[in-house]
């Protein structure tokens, strides 16, 4: 083993830049150097040359909406959705709608959740699921959490159904898949503001629009996983299906879908997690519940109380995640012929019994029905008092003031001015060079082309501010996250708790991170970068740990035997081997940063996010869409370059 692998690693020294990339980079440099004498035409796309995309898009939207009458279709759909939302809303938190039964007592919901947990994962899951709902009730967030869940209860199944159907179509018709894939890639990088505005205009402000935006956001992984699962079905299974004379529908229903069960359920898991992430953000368009509360707490900088809501969201996420994952692992149980029905459905009966029992108890014990504000156990305002006291501390105050001044004057402003000073063409060529280096002419064309489109929208300066913010934050995140990750990866004992913290930090609703940023640094770029930095460090640490832990034991033994010191082992064996995985972490950090920089508009920025926030106030769909595409195209360029590099590297390493 050691004979073959060690030379393999030696065989990948830094390759010299391929010729094409060097030429492109040289052009970029030449353009940058020549900037002072360059005609204005080459520095920025002049106003007269910018096609009025915004007006075109606006006209297109107006045409689709009014002339084609799409708004009547969408309003009809929203009426149907609203009916379902009203039912779940009535049951979960007693909104005054048909069927006028709710709200269910919290004990009944918690009991059913516990039984469901038991069914998929025995006592541990039962405790997790029941405990989560008990926490929500005791902390006094029951109504808010139920408002959120009432939308997820409709959005997640809808996203599942639509995703499944699209996935099946993509697997049946390769042409359809080819057309669908780029759309899904754009959907996954589009800033969420761009989902929100069309949702409001076409689907009425409030839960309905929130539900639609959530569904659209959650569909892509479901489609991809379904198509992947169906493609992997073994030919023996398919033959067996044909031999038993199945019709096409029977083949799909009884052969393909059950065989692809695992992938489909992974898709379901993704749908649930994305729905939960999005449903909080839809507070911006009138979605009630935890997100709306969080937004109003953010508006008054109450960190302690926001933190409690964050914990609730994490608990709900962990419960839904673990239960759906346990469901993936659990294979269907088959009973012997003649088993009586109550034995087949034992757990269903227990759940029903607990449910009815709790409802009855709740009739007599008010606290089992609802926990009012006097009895809740929230500590939020106490935590807030402590936080304020800490922040008022002179030393902390002086330290943050110094950091803010230093970063702004010596690092951020020079960097921003440099990025803004560069001619657009120069930036486009730099990215094309990077593309060429990893993927040849095709990637160069793609990377340069995407940025050229951004330049042609006329939003170049704002796009560069977005880019500068993202890059600054990711560089700082890498400087902190990578060493921490390497350190944590040394021992299994350290790695596991750190990974757990990473998971938690990632499920935390993203805009909670804005609050400490504002409290520490006020309204400026340092604050924005700080918020992005917290969020972007997580994937960097996580993939570093996972990459280094995945280095095969044999390799490490070989290194030990050849007398490598610990740092030699790290730099010569572990890191080269982990680099492709770390690159994925880097890529995710950049994607997270692009996501967060737009939310950071709520601190106060001067980039694309601010313009996007402005469009939310009116109904400028065209402008909103163009801005959203600028962000998506920049994100996709980085995604392409890094993933391409990682894939090539993997091939070289033979993993």
């Amino acid at each position, binding site marked *: 083993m050691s004979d073959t692998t060690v030379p393999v690693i030696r065989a990948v020294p830094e390759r010299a830049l391929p010729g094409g990339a060097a030429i492109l980079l040289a052009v970029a440099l030449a353009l940058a150097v020549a900037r002072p004498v360059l005609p204005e035409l080459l520095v920025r796309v002049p106003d007269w040359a910018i096609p009025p995309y915004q007006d075109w898009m606006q006209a297109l939207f107006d045409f689709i909406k009014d002339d084609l009458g799409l708004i009547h279709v969408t309003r009809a759909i929203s009426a149907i959705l609203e009916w379902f939302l009203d039912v779940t809303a009535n049951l979960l938190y007693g*909104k*005054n709608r048909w069927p006028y039964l709710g709200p269910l007592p919290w004990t009944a919901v918690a009991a059913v959740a516990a039984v469901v947990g038991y069914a998929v994962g025995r006592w541990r899951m039962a405790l997790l699921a029941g405990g989560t709902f008990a926490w929500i009730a005791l902390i006094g967030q029951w109504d808010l959490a139920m408002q959120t869940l009432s939308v997820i209860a409709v959005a997640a199944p809808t996203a599942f159904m639509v995703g499944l159907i699209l996935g099946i179509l993509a697997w049946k018709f390769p042409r359809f898949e080819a057309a669908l894939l780029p759309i899904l890639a754009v959907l996954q990088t589009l800033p969420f503001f761009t989902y929100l505005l069309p949702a*409001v205009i076409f689907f*009425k*402000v*409030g839960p309905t629009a929130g539900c639609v935006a959530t569904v659209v956001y959650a569909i892509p992984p479901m489609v991809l996983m379904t198509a992947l699962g169906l493609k992997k079905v073994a030919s023996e299974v398919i033959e067996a299906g044909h031999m038993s004379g199945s019709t096409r529908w029977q083949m799909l229903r009884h052969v393909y879908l059950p065989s692809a069960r695992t992938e489909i359920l992974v898709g379901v898991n993704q749908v649930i997690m994305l729905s939960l992430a999005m449903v909080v953000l839809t*507070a*911006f*368009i*009138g*979605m*009630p519940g935890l997100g*709306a509360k969080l*937004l*109003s707490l*953010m*508006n*008054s*900088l*109450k960190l302690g109380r926001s933190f409690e809501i964050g914990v609730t969201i994490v608990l709900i996420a962990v419960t839904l995640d673990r239960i759906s994952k346990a469901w993936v692992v659990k294979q269907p149980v088959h009973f012997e012929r003649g088993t009586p029905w109550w034995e087949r459905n034992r757990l269903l009966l227990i759940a029903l019994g607990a449910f009815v029992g709790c409802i009855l108890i709740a009739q007599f014990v008010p606290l089992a029905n609802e926990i009012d*504000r006097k009895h809740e156990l929230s500590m939020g*305002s106490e935590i*807030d008092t402590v936080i304020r006291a800490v922040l008022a501390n002179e030393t902390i*105050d002086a330290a943050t003031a110094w950091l*803010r*001044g230093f970063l*702004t*004057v010596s690092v951020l*402003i020079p960097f921003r001015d440099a990025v803004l000073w560069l001619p657009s063409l120069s930036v486009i060529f730099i990215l094309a060079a990077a593309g060429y280096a990893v993927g040849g002419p095709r990637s160069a064309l793609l990377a340069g082309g995407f940025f050229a489109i951004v330049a042609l929208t006329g939003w170049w300066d704002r796009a560069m501010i977005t880019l500068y913010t993202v890059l600054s934050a990711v560089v700082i995140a890498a400087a902190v996250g990578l060493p921490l990750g390497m350190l944590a990866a040394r021992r299994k004992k350290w790695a596991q708790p750190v990974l757990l913290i990473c998971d938690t930090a990632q499920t935390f609703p993203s805009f909670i991170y*804005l609050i400490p940023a*504002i*409290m520490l640094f*006020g*309204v*400026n*770029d340092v604050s924005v970068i700080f918020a992005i930095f917290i969020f972007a460090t997580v994937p960097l640490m996580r993939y570093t740990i996972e990459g280094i832990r995945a280095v095969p034991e044999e390799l490490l033994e070989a290194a030990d035997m050849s007398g490598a010191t610990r740092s030699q082992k790290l730099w010569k064996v572990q890191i080269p081997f982990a680099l492709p995985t770390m690159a994925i972490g880097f890529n995710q950090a950049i994607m997270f940063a692009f996501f967060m920089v737009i939310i*950071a*508009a*709520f*601190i*106060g*920025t*001067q980039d694309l996010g*601010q313009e996007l*926030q*402005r469009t*939310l*106030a*009116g*109904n400028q769909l065209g402008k909103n869409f163009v801005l959203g595409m600028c962000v998506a195209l920049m994100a996709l360029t980085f995604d392409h370059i890094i993933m391409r590099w990682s894939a090539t590297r993997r091939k070289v390493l033979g993993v």
Partner: protein
Amino acid sequence: MKAIKLVSIAALFAASVSSAQAQDSSDPIIIPIHNWSSQIVMSHVIGDILQSLGDHVEYVTTDSQAVYESIRLGDVTFEPEVWEGAFGASFRAAMEKGGIEDVATHAAITREDWWYPMWTKDACPGLPDWKALNDCAALFATPETGTKGRFLGGPVDWLKHDAEKVDALGLNFQVVNAGSAAAIWAELAAAEKDKKPIVVFNWTPNFAEAVWPGEFVNFPEWVDGCDTDPAVGPVPDKTYDCGNPANGYLKIAAWDGMKDKWPAAYATLKKVSFTNHQIAEMAKLVDIDEMEPEDAAQAWLDANESVWQPWTK
């Protein structure tokens, strides 16, 4: 407290049933919630009063500019705080399209403009004149703005035209927009510690005037058309060469189908009128006393029964 509330609501309910001629629809009245405290509390106060009439009320969080379009479509029933300076343009535009109605005007007089806390005046004694402010611009400089002064504006979706104003009047300031009202208060509180000069966007009625005494900057007086016609105002070739209206209105706007669908609620809404003091009080309950908006509304209703009882008759 709860018992008192129940009794008073029951009594009110009995009273309102006898007085209201036409029956209100059982569909919910949709009240919007925005991102500043007085509006949130006032929405809940009016919502609670309407509930005491037997109406169903629901709240929806919306953007404060986009809400006028929602009211026109009937998706939202009414807006309790239409500020002339901030929302006058959106409101007028919606009125022109139709579907929205000017229901009532609060007693309160509103003003929204550049504002500074009193300690700023020590450093720049010529205030509140805007030319004096411009002369002291360097005092307001921050690391981000370099040599220019910083003006901390409100969230961009309030659609203020501060950058245009800076340009029109040739101010040596840079506009930095805070993402939320709370960010402004956080910066004000931070400036207070070492009495640093600061100029921010502020408005009255608001709780801030009770916490930080201060004054508005006196810009050239607002004249109608100053925002659209370059000829109006002191600078001949620029728009926005003026301050915001110094005694602006605060109105209530409603969907024009409201009076037929919920006649009793509409009759009450027509009588609703709050003063500057009452509105500042509502904001204070949340921003200073840290109450939940629902509780703040209840507390305000309990303490001011003599104010709102007559509106329900």
